């Protein structure tokens, strides 16, 4: 595929993902923490077009499921009752885009029917809804931590690049240390000194701050490099000769030069940080239950019986692939264009 098409494709896939996740409440049929205790580990609900008399229905429908009488771990469809899939239904309340309270959902089925597109987890919670809401946590963590890293990196890189004296020396030596760290180990160490005894919200913030602060070194070095070369560019030298103030020079000429580096770094760091959050939550050091996050969802797979029996628990991991692919492709294309 040529780079331009690839770029568009990656961009579109990212936009789609982020759209789905931003409006998780609308696209998901259920509250991500709602438990259906009689439907633990229900497989993805089958969507039918033909009923038991082989009649075709234009509107797809689902059946209810119940545990098999002789094998309570497997479910069977209860064919007597049909639950047509309805579009634009009213369900549990949520805030659209985090702002406007509403009850509208894209699709759903009538109670007591359930539609689990991606199956249900150990408490009978809808995996599809959890995936979308969990994405909010994981992606928000990725974005916020990236912003933090880039912000810190930008600040320190600019200072080092412009100052070019002892400050430069100190910042760059520190950056070397930070870059040479086994960062996941350090992330763990930092998590170790944080109180484990915190609420879900605080834990999330902590994770973000920790991930973000640890990653300042690489962007800082790159930005310093850009600043150093920008300082020597003809037009900057000329502007300085014409008596432009330092602040003006930085704001007008030097800072814009760093845009390319910032963009590439962002598209490399975001997926990396999303994965860091997933890893931490997987190991029980991230956001705590019942909040959905991709790491939390995947951590169920640490249980032998889940790993062996319920393939749909892998879905959150699969969902990560297009997202990360999108970001990496974006990073590559930006790099190539620079």
């Amino acid at each position, binding site marked *: 595929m040529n780079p331009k098409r690839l770029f568009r494709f990656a961009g579109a896939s990212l936009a789609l993902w982020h759209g789905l996740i931003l409006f998780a409440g609308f696209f998901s049929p259920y509250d991500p923490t709602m438990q259906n205790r009689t439907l633990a580990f229900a497989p993805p609900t089958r969507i039918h077009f033909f009923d038991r008399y082989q009649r075709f229905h234009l509107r797809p429908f689902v059946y209810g499921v119940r545990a098999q009488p002789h094998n309570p771990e497997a479910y069977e469809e209860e064919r007597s009752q049909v639950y047509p899939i309805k579009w634009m239904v009213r369900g549990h309340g949520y805030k659209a885009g985090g702002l406007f309270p509403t009850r509208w959902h894209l699709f759903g089925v009538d109670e007591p029917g359930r539609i689990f597109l991606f199956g249900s987890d150990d408490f009978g919670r809808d995996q599809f809804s959890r995936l979308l809401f969990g994405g909010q946590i994981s992606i928000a963590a990725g974005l916020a931590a990236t912003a933090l890293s880039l912000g810190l990196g930008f600040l320190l890189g600019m200072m080092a690049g412009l100052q070019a004296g002892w400050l430069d020396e100190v910042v760059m030596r520190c950056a070397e240390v930070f*870059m*040479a760290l*086994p960062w996941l*180990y350090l992330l763990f*160490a930092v998590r170790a*000194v944080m109180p484990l005894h915190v609420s879900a919200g605080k834990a999330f913030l902590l994770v973000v701050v920790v991930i973000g602060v640890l990653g300042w070194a690489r962007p800082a070095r790159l930005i310093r490099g850009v600043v150093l070369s920008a300082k020597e560019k003809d037009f900057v030298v000329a502007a300085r000769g014409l008596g432009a103030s330092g602040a003006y020079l930085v704001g007008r000429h030097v800072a814009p030069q760093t845009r390319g580096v910032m963009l590439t770094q962002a598209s490399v760091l975001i997926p990396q940080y999303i994965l860091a959050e997933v890893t931490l939550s997987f190991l029980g050091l991230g956001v705590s239950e019942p909040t959905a996050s991709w790491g939390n969802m995947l951590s169920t797979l640490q249980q032998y019986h889940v*790993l062996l029996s319920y393939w749909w628990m892998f879905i959150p991991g699969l969902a990560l*692939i297009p997202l990360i*692919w999108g970001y990496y*492709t974006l990073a590559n294309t930006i790099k190539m264009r620079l």
Partner: protein
Amino acid sequence: MIRYCLRRIINSLFLLAAVSVLTFLLFEIAPGNFLDELRLNPQVSEQTIANLKAKYALDQPIGVKYAQWARSVAHGDLGFSVAYNMAAAPLLWHRAANTLLLTVTAMVLSWLIAIPTGAWIAARRGKWQDILFGGANVILLAIPHLMLALILLLFALRSGLLPVGGISSTALSSRGWGTTTGDLMAHLVLPVLCLVLVTLPMLLPHVRRAVSDVLDSPFILAARARGLPDSRLLVGHALRASANPVISLFGLSISELLSSSLLVEIVMSWPGLGRLLLEAILARDFHLVVGCVLLSTAFLAGGNLIADLLLYASDPRIRAKQ
């Protein structure tokens, strides 16, 4: 040569010192302290606490504390594990050796695969093989390591072909050396495979780019014009010329490998530093945490040192600078 070596070693030591200071500072600002944790452990007697207090200057200001701890490192104790009620070093060495075994094997294998494959793809750049590998590479890169480890684990469980988790089949003590080694190899397969699959997609594009840059350079074009066969060109000239950018990647890849191995160790219950670290965190066993971080940094520094030396050996420009 020796001066260069020394400088790199001093650099590494500086790095280690910086990391230890950093982690120590971290624990200083953290709520709850080592002494509290010690007192909480019913297995640690007042006598032990008093001894440790004297040994590590636990109630002194941080400078003194750090100096004492550094002394214990010099003595080979690496601090005191609250949970195990013993010096941290014996706990750490064994795990560190396991981690090293895992990562070094994975590293060597990845490079052994990456260099010929990368060169081969580079020789076919633009052809379908290149595009195929590129695509596969991106997909491998996009699979979260966690996912990969879990899928491999599931495969091993389902197929029953490979031992699942751990480092050795139990109780081989009475059998021969050969069996033990064979058994270790069998246990290595799964985690190493996982690490190789994680590392390869990072290495391949770099090797490919480095080799193809050389292949496009004038001296190769000239050689080809003189009629040298492609295979000899690739092995004899291009690979050697592209050694530099590839070696500089070596140091960086270690950091990534260590981080992935942390996860792989935990998922596949490999008794390495990663698992020890996770346990230490949950038990709030501070000195053990510092020890784990420090040892992993030491691996990293060691790897970088090797990379630097290799670079020195392969690149005459660095030698000339001296």
